């Protein structure tokens, strides 16, 4: 989902940066407030950030014969709400843009928007919906994390198709081509991300039942079971 440095026309680069900035600001405020009110949640917030660090560094092979990586934003969104992941995702993307030439500064806004805004908001919404439909914690977390991962890559495809419409087929044809590269490759990886997020949630539910309960993620009886 990393759009390479310089590979968005300048007006798109500026537009996506403007679109992403308020979410990052909102996220910083929400994280600061949370740490002020519940200092004991700082470590768990670190875990959410660390999870994104690990997962976005893992380039996994896929059935399409190319490699891509999960995003790891679903966990933090489920635990801390969607806004918290915007600054965290921004830090990861900045690290990769500056040190790894992976993504870029001019495309940072667009990449933050797909990975750290659309993904977390999707995860949060899907998790809430699945819980309301009485799905178990594990199933809800799986759906939230894997669909958020997939939607991040669909967003990247939309961004690129918008910037580079096909000369014949326009936006639609271009979107299908980019989605063929990104979204298709991502399907098994999204499943992996969902499974890994369930693994870490299981560990948290086992060793930190009180914290999950405080965060409103899981009611006491289910975690204890």
């Amino acid at each position, binding site marked *: 989902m990393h759009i390479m*440095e310089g590979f968005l*026309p300048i007006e798109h680069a500026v537009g996506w940066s403007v679109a992403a900035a308020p979410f990052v600001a909102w996220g910083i405020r929400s994280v600061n407030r949370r740490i002020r009110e519940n200092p004991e949640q700082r470590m768990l917030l670190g875990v959410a950030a660390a999870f994104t660090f690990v997962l976005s560094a893992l380039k996994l092979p896929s059935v399409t014969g*190319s490699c891509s990586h999960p995003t790891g934003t679903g966990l933090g969104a489920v635990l801390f709400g969607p806004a918290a992941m915007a600054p965290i995702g921004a830090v990861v993307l900045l690290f990769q843009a500056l040190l*790894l*030439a992976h993504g870029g500064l001019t495309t940072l806004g667009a990449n933050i928007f797909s990975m750290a805004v659309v993904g977390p908001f999707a995860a949060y919404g899907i998790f809430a919906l699945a819980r309301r439909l009485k799905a178990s914690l594990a199933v809800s977390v799986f759906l939230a994390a894997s669909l958020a991962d997939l939607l991040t890559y669909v967003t990247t495809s939309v961004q690129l198709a918008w910037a580079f419409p096909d000369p014949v087929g326009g936006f639609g044809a271009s979107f299908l081509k980019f989605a063929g590269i990104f979204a298709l490759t991502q399907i098994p990886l999204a499943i992996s991300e969902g499974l890994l997020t369930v693994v870490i949630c299981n560990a948290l539910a086992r060793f930190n039942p009180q914290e999950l309960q405080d965060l409103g993620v899981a009611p006491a009886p289910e975690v204890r079971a």
Partner: protein
Amino acid sequence: MKRHQNLLLLIAVVLLAALPLWLVERPLGPDGQPAEIFGGADSEAQALITRIAPDYQPWFQPLLEPASGEIASLLFALQAALGAGFIGYYLGCARTREKLRREQRRGEAAARREDEDQEGPAC
């Protein structure tokens, strides 16, 4: 039970990552030689951009580029190691804390039973 479930989930992730290596056949390039496989989707998208818009010129270059593929994988490994190290530290702490809590509870319960036993014969 939960630990069992996690083990199965991790095996599933490993299979999901390993099966493509097995299943996908190396395509032949235009020259009939086996072509590159398992390149990054990001660079494939970049190639597609240059096909859709051949005249497009990237207007900004990365400030710093890893000197080689090895250096890049060093940095990616570092990124993953930092994250995994922190998660491991946290889960280790949480596990020990939960264990101590349980032992404390058990200790309190045992002390209570002892008190009751001692009070028993006196009555």
